[in-house]
């Protein structure tokens, strides 16, 4: 039997799939003319339902079932993402040198979106901190900082805050100059984005270079400004150490 496209009610997650027997039954065989499968997709990753039902309809009008079955499809993974520099900076105390970014997931090949899923950042390998020098009280920054976001209705997630603390930026501005070290200095941290495949304990990476796997995060400290970048998208602002 074959079946092609079928749809899931976006509100309830319910679906109904009817398959037709492509050939007449062979003599002596009892083959269902149609098989109807109904169920509800309720999994957080939208690829499985805990219980679905199959009902087989025969030529003589009788039917078998419904029988409970478990159905699952491969988990969809976004082909990638883009980054948007929102052009805003955090206003919270102690965080004003951290720029705000948004991630935008690409739809899957069949057009599926990923709302309700969870994305997670990880460090696939260490970064390079071109601002830190031995003895600095500000620790090296070479790894991501533990972000996790829910994907929203428009397939995006936010806010990814990227930047040093104001006191760290000020330290580098003042003391690198004092020590005769170069400014601007740049910190580069690799960010591998992953999406959940089950609950919030199992994740898979998605995308390609600067489209999720792996994004380049860059923090640039100059004598009079700070700049934050995510996958090539940047925000900068005037910032100067005040003694």
């Amino acid at each position, binding site marked *: 039997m074959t079946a092609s496209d079928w749809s899931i009610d976006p509100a309830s997650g319910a679906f109904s799939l009817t398959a037709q027997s492509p050939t007449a039954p062979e003599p002596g065989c009892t083959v269902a003319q149609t098989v109807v499968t109904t169920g509800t997709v309720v999994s957080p990753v939208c690829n499985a339902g805990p219980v679905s039902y199959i009902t087989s309809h025969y030529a003589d009008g009788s039917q078998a079932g419904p029988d409970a079955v478990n159905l699952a499809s491969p988990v969809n993974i976004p082909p990638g993402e883009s980054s948007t520099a929102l052009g805003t900076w955090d206003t919270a105390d102690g965080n004003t040198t951290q720029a705000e970014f948004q991630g935008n997931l690409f739809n899957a090949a069949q057009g599926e979106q990923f709302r309700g899923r969870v994305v997670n950042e990880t460090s*696939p390998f260490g970064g390079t901190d071109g601002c830190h020098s*031995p*003895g600095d*009280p500000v*620790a*090296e920054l070479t790894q991501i*900082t*533990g972000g996790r976001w829910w994907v929203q209705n428009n397939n995006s997630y936010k806010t990814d805050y990227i930047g040093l603390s104001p*006191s760290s930026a000020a330290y580098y501005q003042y003391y690198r100059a*004092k020590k005769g070290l170069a400014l601007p200095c740049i910190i580069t941290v690799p960010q591998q984005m992953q999406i959940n495949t089950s609950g919030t304990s199992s994740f898979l990476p998605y995308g390609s270079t600067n489209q999720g796997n792996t994004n380049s995060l860059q923090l640039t400290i100059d004598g009079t400004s700070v700049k934050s970048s995510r996958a090539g998208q940047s925000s900068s602002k005037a910032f100067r150490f005040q003694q």
Partner: protein
Amino acid sequence: MKLSLTCLFASFVMAHVALSASITLTSDPADPRPLQNVAQQLENQCGWRITYEEGPISNEEDLQNNVPGFLKKSDPVSLSIATRKYLPFKFTFNELASPYDRAAEIKTIDALLQDYKESDNLPYFAVRHSGNDYSHIVQVLTKDENGNIIPFQPVLDTPITFPKETRQLDTVVKLILRQVAQERNVGITEGTLPTMLFRQVQVEIGANNESARSVLIKALDAAQLQRSADTRVMWQMNYDVLSKYYYFNAHIIAGSFKRWPATEAVPPAVQTPVPHPANAWFRQK
């Protein structure tokens, strides 16, 4: 990924061949915090949570110049470029048996401190172990202007109090640090932090005349329970001899060494805070 497989491989070898090899960790010769440097390497190798807290350096005898282009030690100390006086440091320990053994971890870290004190570095540190997987390297001595070595009460020993309520972890950490700064009349500011974790996790924490360190542990353990057993945060409180500020740094320990169930209760560190004497180096932020 910073973690090496040394400890796991060592465990396998120990379990099956009953051999024990030694590992030597050497501090970066350019790093004026050799103890922190080696402790960090232990963390990277074994996933151990070793926090590090400095105190002030109050005597110029404990300082040296450490900037390329300047002669070290023979030049008069220029405070604008000074660092702590130090020498590179090596620590050798035996590979550990499997499975994870907290007692063996403590023994190794104690040996690290002992070896460090016997090196020619500033011997001002001690180690305290608390909770299920915390070890704290803390500066407990300093040298006064007259050259006398005197006790120093670590700043995170300071008792703090605030009402229990649900707050962002970032807010809780800053609340802790500000209370300490106020109580001790010192400058404390933020260095490198796990920004997103601190922003996204909310914890219900209060403090009733408890040491700042214990409250910090409660907050981080609550965050770990919410996220995952692997979300283990450690901190480094570095005292900057130039700005005379403490910089509070923290990061998530890399890797997935699950050494203890995240649901276990973590008893607070045993500490007896004492009033801190007035110190001209300190100033309020």
